[in-house]
């Protein structure tokens, strides 16, 4: 299934932005390998027979609702949980059974877990002292880390004398101080307000590229995952649902769960009418018409399928579209959500099905051109939607 979405992301290497997609290279050797991992807590299966490869220098996100097993998966890499069965290797080294204090990974905790009785300096130096690093080397490294997170002036403060954002930076500096092979980030920005969170996301990406390290982030925030990650693994009930770069996850979800979990979406139930190379025609009772989607589908006429269309790809207008006929439906404005940058129009079709269409507010708008109860046309191009078979 491909409609030409870029399956790679850019990475700056030596000042030049290059394609970064080791997962498409069959010769690439993964840094982290989860092989047939199962983790049970009593009767509850947190992770079920899961296999996943993560490559060096990758910024990898585990995304899913709470209780989906993403945190357990990360904690197994840190050594706080042992898999019930399966194997975890890091750079070829078997990690199962190795205590956390011997593993070459460091974690940034959701609660930051800063040592309250130590200063910022002592917190960052803690890991280096454990490794009996020479005093002057430790001091230099701590200074370097303080500079990296812009906290030079706060070295002598205790954690409770810092703001939430500063504490988050200390936690990050502490986990980076030992230059681990992999940095684990457990909901690292969850406690920050929206604006600071967005800024920090870009700083994290920048840092990851600069340090050339492998980052594994656990998050339930799909925007955060999309922003920072090279690849996202969407999880549900202890299983991987889709593992792909953000654009693929968003534009070509492989099932209704992913389409619905990541971003906003209209999902229409349909039956396949006819299949041609690069085009499929479906009959949708919900839309009360036939719809066309430009896609190769693994199915035959009569099979059930679902059509997923993102609201921003749906055109809403008072006039019918110029090119009529394809994926064009008539309805009435049922509700409008004004978000400032966008307005979300909820359009009710004659049979009661509702379709969301997002429209950017390009000009200042005192009176809306489209208002409640207006008769409108909604339409989308054949390559705007995707057909999902599960």
């Amino acid at each position, binding site marked *: 299934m491909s409609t030409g979405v870029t399956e790679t992301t850019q990475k700056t290497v030596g000042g030049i932005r290059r394609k970064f997609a080791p997962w498409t290279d069959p010769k690439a050797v993964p840094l982290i390998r989860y092989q047939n991992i199962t983790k049970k807590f009593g009767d509850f299966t947190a992770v079920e027979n899961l296999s996943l490869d993560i490559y060096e220098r990758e910024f990898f996100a585990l995304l899913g609702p709470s209780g989906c097993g993403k945190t357990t998966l990360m904690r197994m890499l840190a050594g706080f949980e042992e898999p019930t069965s399966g194997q975890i290797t890091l750079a070829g080294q078997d990690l199962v059974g190795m205590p956390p204090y011997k593993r070459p990974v460091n974690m940034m905790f959701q609660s930051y877990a800063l040592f309250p009785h130590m200063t910022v300096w002592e917190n960052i130096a803690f890991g280096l002292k454990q490794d009996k690093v020479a005093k002057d080397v430790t001091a230099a490294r701590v200074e370097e880390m303080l500079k990296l997170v812009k906290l030079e002036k706060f070295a002598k403060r205790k954690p*409770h004398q810092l703001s939430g954002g500063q504490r988050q930076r200390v936690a990050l500096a502490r986990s980076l101080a030992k230059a681990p092979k992999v940095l684990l980030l457990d909901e690292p920005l969850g406690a920050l307000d929206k604006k600071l969170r967005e800024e920090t996301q870009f700083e994290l990406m920048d840092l990851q590229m600069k340090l050339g390290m492998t980052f594994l982030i656990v998050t339930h925030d799909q925007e955060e995952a999309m922003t920072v990650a090279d690849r996202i693994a969407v999880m549900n009930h202890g299983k991987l649902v889709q593992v792909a770069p953000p654009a693929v996850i968003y534009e070509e979800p492989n099932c209704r769960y992913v389409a619905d979990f990541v971003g906003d979406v209209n999902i229409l139930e349909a039956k396949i009418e006819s299949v041609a190379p690069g085009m499929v025609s479906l009959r949708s009772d919900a839309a009360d018409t036939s719809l066309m989607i430009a896609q190769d589908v693994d199915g035959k006429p009569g099979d059930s399928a679902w059509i997923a269309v993102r609201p921003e790809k749906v055109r809403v207008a008072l006039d019918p579209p110029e090119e009529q006929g394809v994926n064009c439906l008539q309805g009435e404005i049922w509700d409008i959500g004004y978000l400032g940058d966008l307005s979300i129009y909820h359009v009710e079709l004659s049979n009661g099905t509702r379709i969301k269409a997002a429209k950017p507010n390009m000009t200042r708008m005192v009176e809306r051109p489209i208002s409640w109860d207006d008769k409108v046309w909604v339409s989308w191009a054949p390559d705007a939607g995707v057909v999902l078979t599960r």
Partner: protein
Amino acid sequence: MAQKAKGRWLVTAIPYAWLLALFLIPFLIVFKISVSQDAIAQPPYTPVFDLAAGWEVFKESFSELSFENYGYVLSWDNEFLEAYGSSLWIAGLSTLMLLAVGYPIAYGMARAPKSIRPTLLMLIILPFWTSFLIRVYAWIGILSPEGLLNQLLTYLGLIDEPLQILATDTAVYIGIVYSYLPFMILPLYAALEKMDETLLEAAADLGCPPFAAFWKITWPLSLPGVFAGCLLCFIPAVGEFVIPDLLGGSDTLMIGKVLWTEFSVNRSWTVSSAVAVLLLMVLVIPIVFYQNIQAREMEGR
């Protein structure tokens, strides 16, 4: 608003009135007796401030007060200083033993599954349901030459002759550690229980093995509980009377026992009052010290 201010005033006034009536006034009475002189009279000291005898006599009474008794108590010729020293030593050593016994118990409780913690807490305070005096008496039955402990050890073939534990300092240590253990465990448990366990995960993650993590993270963070527990045990242990009297020997020298002898055998109210006032001074110093630490701790939060 005025109503509200009145209510607030009342709320603070009640505990102060309580302390005034039941601590400060009795203390002043004891202090007054300590600067009086022994007399064969009823009450057995002089002067007695009696307004009924007239204003002049009342004023005269002031000139009879002196710190003579303090000089007597603080003189090296008498056994008081030795008793203070011995009390501090026994209380200090007992407190260390209490800490050594109490810390692992409190640690175990704080790390136990959440569901059984209330039960464990109950078990710690269960002994309070029996009178303190009865529990100390019970130790006589255990420690005496023909007591349960000696019987058991003889039965097991570990000893041929009964051990002389009762009426020694060892019995006093056993008694103090046994009696004061809940007062050590409870503040330690409170401190350990509120500690965030992810701190230990963070320490492990940064390369710190569990034993080192205990000394670097758990121990320093439990220090407020350690201080509280130590003071709660040390202060009453210094003035302890029942335990050395029942379990200790004739050579067990503790200030509580000395005070009692001075009061009831020598019938010197004035000297025993001076002993009590000095004991209070000895104990107030660590309390002030502790308050200071706590204030600094609060400031830190």
